[in-house]
């Protein structure tokens, strides 16, 4: 099962690169679905079989919220705002991928001194999770479209959640459920705000929201 964990993390990391390389919003949303599948699947591979019932239900809830509900919300917001793709990102797509590679290397480096102190089965898990979180952050700062930024937040949250998934067996599930609920509401509220912005401004380019400053 160690192999399975590694495979799912590998898919998670590859999905990050697809997120960085694409300009189409629909593709971004599809990729977050793929990430949700990976997350809930490798949560299961971390535990020994037979899987505890609570863990199975947590994986199912994760899959439902991150893989079905949130992508649906994003897709609906995309149709309402009438935006198909990111027009002019701050950082181009090929540069984004190059930065992504550097971040991946950095993620591995960071965990060299910290690795020894814990017992996680897979050596890829922590760097992969951190890289996913950094990818989300990169999407938020380098893209202008508000919806891509919301998707970036979701990806970042996926990365952080992957850290938690490594602990899902030991940590109280109530907290994980609370985290999921918050992320759900966050994307929901952001979706509403994007809708209001698109109605008020006729665009959702966040770099043109620059009236308030000193």
């Amino acid at each position, binding site marked *: 099962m160690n192999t399975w964990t590694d495979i799912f993390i590998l898919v998670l990391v590859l999905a990050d690169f697809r997120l960085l390389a694409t300009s189409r919003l629909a593709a971004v949303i599809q990729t977050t679905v793929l990430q949700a599948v990976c997350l809930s699947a490798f949560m299961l591979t971390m535990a020994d079989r037979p899987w505890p019932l609570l863990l199975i239900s947590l994986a199912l809830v994760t899959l439902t919220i991150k893989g079905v509900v949130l992508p649906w919300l994003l897709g609906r917001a995309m149709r309402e705002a009438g935006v198909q793709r990111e027009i002019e990102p701050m950082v181009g797509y090929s540069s984004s991928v190059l930065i992504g590679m550097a971040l991946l290397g950095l993620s591995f480096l960071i965990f060299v*001194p*910290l690795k020894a*102190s*814990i*017992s996680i089965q897979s050596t890829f898990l922590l760097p992969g999770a951190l890289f996913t*979180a950094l990818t989300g*952050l990169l999407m*938020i700062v380098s893209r202008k479209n*508000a919806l891509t*930024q919301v998707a970036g*937040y979701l990806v*970042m*949250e996926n990365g*952080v959640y992957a*850290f*938690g998934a*490594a*602990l899902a067996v*030991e*940590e*109280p599930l*109530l*907290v994980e459920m*609370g*985290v999921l*609920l*918050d992320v759900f*509401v*966050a994307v929901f*509220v*952001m979706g509403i*705000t994007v809708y*209001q*912005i698109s109605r*008020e*401004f006729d665009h959702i380019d*966040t770099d043109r*929201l*620059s*009236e*308030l400053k*000193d």
Partner: protein
Amino acid sequence: MLFSTVLIPLILGLGVLGIPWKGVRRGILIAGGGCHALVVAALAFTKNGFPVTGTWIGLDSTGLLFLSITSVLFLSVAIYTAGYLGRDSERRVRDSVEGFLFSNEPEAIFIGCLLLFLASMSLVCISRDMGLLWVAIEATTLVSAPLISFHRHHRSLEATWKYLLICSVGIAIALLGNYFLAFAGHGKVHLNLDNLIAEAATLDQRWLKAAFLMLLVGYGTKMGMVPMHTWLPDAHSESPSMVSALLSGALLNCAFLGILRSHFILTAAGLVLFSGELLVFFGMLSMAVAAAFMIRQNDYKRMLAYSSIEHMGILALGVGLGGLAGTGAMLHAVNHSLTKGLLFLVSGHILFTYGTKKSSDVKHIIKTAPLTGCLWLAGFLAITGAPPFGPFLSELTILKGILDAGRWGVAAGYVLVLAVIFIAMARVVIPMAFGLPEQQKSIESIHVNHREPAWFAWPVMGMAMVILVLGLYIPGPVWSFLGKAAAMAGGF
């Protein structure tokens, strides 16, 4: 009993969404604030020694202190809001700055979110588990976003968007910090505060340091620490004044509580120098940067927002040093919340009277609206730490704490920044209060209403009285309570 501080506003907040009558909704808002205050008072007086109940929630001294601040401030704001909504109830409202028409958010949603905001902040104060604390703090962000965009126009939407995105990202980083904490316990220690403290010696120090950094950045974003503060002036200046008062007086404290808890854990693990020095550094940085932006600030609501950043810096500084400075910081949290609540409510009335946020266009308040003018001046004196108000005493206590710790450089910087801020704020506030209006500008454009409405006057005067009393006399039991609160927050 304890959980009812969350449950009462939660149920009322959800219930209010379905009530079609305006008067009933506003009544419920005040009733919710009143009930909450009563429960908190009962908790404060019945529980001697504050036993911790259960592993998830419990009330310790620090939690009780912040819960009381939140409750008192919310009650004042609730009374103010009921009156404010009565005045602002037309379907289309004229923007007071640019003059275009816009419609407000539905009032039911606004009141509902206010009550839910109270519920989530109460949960922050009573949670004894780092995971639950995180869930609660993120919840405060989400329910307060609709409050900021109550006036639905382009500026408030921009502010809401920045607030939502920046704070959510920050809070996600804090979640990473929580997981690092779990890694520090080798995945075996639960994130319950008592567990963490009991097992502090066995925690892995490298992970613990990494966890604190993440928690500091994460909750620091929400608290408005420089350099993660960029959302704060926008959100505070664009939201309605009572929301600014709550954001500044209660929400920033809640985020600060998250940092306090983390600091407490590191203190128990023997890393107090690491976390304490970080807090001192970021505290000084926040104060200095806030002072720089307050010089020549022409928007008085933004000036108040930067002042909040400054005071959060003072709190971080005091707690980072611990000892007497820590106790002073706890007292300062009370003083700052009440004073800033007062100032924001008064600024709301100035905005309504003059229809501008530019301080250079506001002249002679002391004549136009005498009570508002006096309160504005009193608030200014209090917030800059002039006697005889409460903040003077707490800032002096912190200064004494700094000197006791032998940190002469910090003391010099602290006094210098406070002096700069006093001058910067005086240059804005004094002309607003006493400056004579220019001849060209006719006074007819100003809503001249010499009598302030009761819903404005009473809550604000109440707050002014409390900070005045706190500056003149603090009873012994209150001091020892503040000392205990500081000790729970990692003072040593």
